[in-house]
């Protein structure tokens, strides 16, 4: 008996609603965030991730209210990301009730923010999110880091970047394959495994889950410590419980 692998439903939030898109585009409404969070908690989710995908800064405060409401009723770890630019943003999210804050674009603009925030608030609450896409340049191919919700190429190698982020104090890495996100073809297992083998901190696999076997593969082949999915849960294809039962039947430790 040992540590359970985690299942993390991801709630993309904009304008106070949960939404889900394909390859970061074409958004569909998936409900009220507090209600969705409560539902997943009751189904046995191990953790919840909220991604604030609000494009304008006008509605930025909304996510704080949502997290406050969720944190009063749901007692499992809550990770919140999206638009985190400064240590103050981290502090505000933690004060609203987030347990971990996920940093993506701003870590690339200023990698020192990862060091600053993990020193100040503890590594346990700093997750670095990495959006990566397989990129071919001449005869060389690598997973390239993208920012701004997948719009901007950085030229950075995702594996090297992951090692750097862990060294600067990230307590966990959330790895999303942009090639797979929303496609339902499964995680990019090579990407997940390459990073998981290199770094000591836990890895959350994300992007592409279409069925329950994909979750099993993420753990067994990819070496992920947690698996994140959105659409298979949001639109009622599977419950968290079904996912756990399936993982258990594949000899993966889970929390029941």
């Amino acid at each position: 008996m040992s540590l359970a692998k985690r299942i993390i439903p991801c709630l993309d939030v904009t304008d106070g609603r949960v939404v889900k898109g394909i390859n970061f585009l074409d958004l569909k409404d998936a409900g009220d965030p507090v209600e969705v969070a409560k539902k997943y908690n009751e189904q046995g989710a191990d953790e919840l991730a909220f991604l604030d995908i609000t494009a304008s800064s006008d509605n930025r405060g909304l996510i704080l209210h949502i997290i406050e409401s969720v944190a009063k009723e749901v007692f499992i770890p809550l990770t919140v990301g999206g638009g985190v630019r400064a240590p103050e943003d981290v502090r505000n999210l933690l004060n609203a009730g987030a347990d971990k804050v996920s940093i993506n674009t701003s870590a690339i603009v200023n990698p020192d923010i990862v060091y600053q925030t993990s020193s100040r608030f503890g590594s346990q609450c700093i997750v670095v999110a990495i959006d990566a896409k397989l990129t071919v340049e001449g005869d060389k191919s690598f997973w390239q880091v993208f920012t701004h919700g997948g719009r901007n190429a950085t030229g950075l190698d995702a594996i090297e970047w992951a090692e750097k982020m862990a060294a600067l104090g990230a307590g966990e890495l959330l790895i999303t394959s942009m090639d797979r996100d929303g496609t339902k073809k499964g995680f990019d297992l090579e990407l997940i495994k390459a990073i998981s083998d290199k770094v000591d901190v836990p890895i959350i696999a994300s992007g592409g889950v279409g069925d329950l076997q994909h979750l099993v593969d993420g753990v067994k082949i990819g070496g992920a410590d947690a698996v994140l999915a959105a659409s298979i849960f949001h639109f009622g294809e599977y419950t968290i419980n079904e996912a756990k039962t399936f993982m258990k039947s594949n000899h993966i430790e889970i929390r029941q």
Partner: protein
Amino acid sequence: MIAIIDYGMGNLKSVFNAFKHAAPEADIRVTSNPTDIKNARHVVFPGQGAMPDCIRELDQRNLRASVIEAAETKPFLGICIGLQMLFDKSEEGNVEGLGLLNGTVKRFNNQNTKDENGHKLKIPHMGWNEVSQTNHHPLWRNINNHDRFYFVHSYYLESKDENIVSAETLYAQKFCCAIAKDNIFAVQFHPEKSSSAGLQLIKNFVQWSV
């Protein structure tokens, strides 16, 4: 009144929320005021981040004496670093703890250890792990033996005194994840983030009298 000691390390909102939910009728205060700690009937000593920082911040706020007095006199719940600080010393920054209990806090070693799928063990130990109760204690009331609780830590307690061990968990090796001595109960995991089992433990603490 239940005092949750705030010495500037980490975020206590989750702890407060969980106590409020588990004991809605109780007066719960997040406080750095020694008078509050003195007057409280129950004291919660949480902790996040690195132990050297926690000890430094505690001393900067002149709270060491209040914490020690509370730990010697009334129901006292340490959480995470709040457990670690009760002991003699920590390998983290090679710092001395409060010395209320005998033991050393050490870093997990993941060299040559693999999980059941052959992947290397990660540090921090993060997620839901089984808590095997090793004695009867009022704080385990209505909690099943081997229920899972949420952990996140890179250092663990190696106790020299087996009599204080109240639960163990397996990660890389078996380690002590809960201690009980007189009016002190302390846990390495986070009851405030451990769903129904965690809320039950908090409820048990609030109802605990020594």
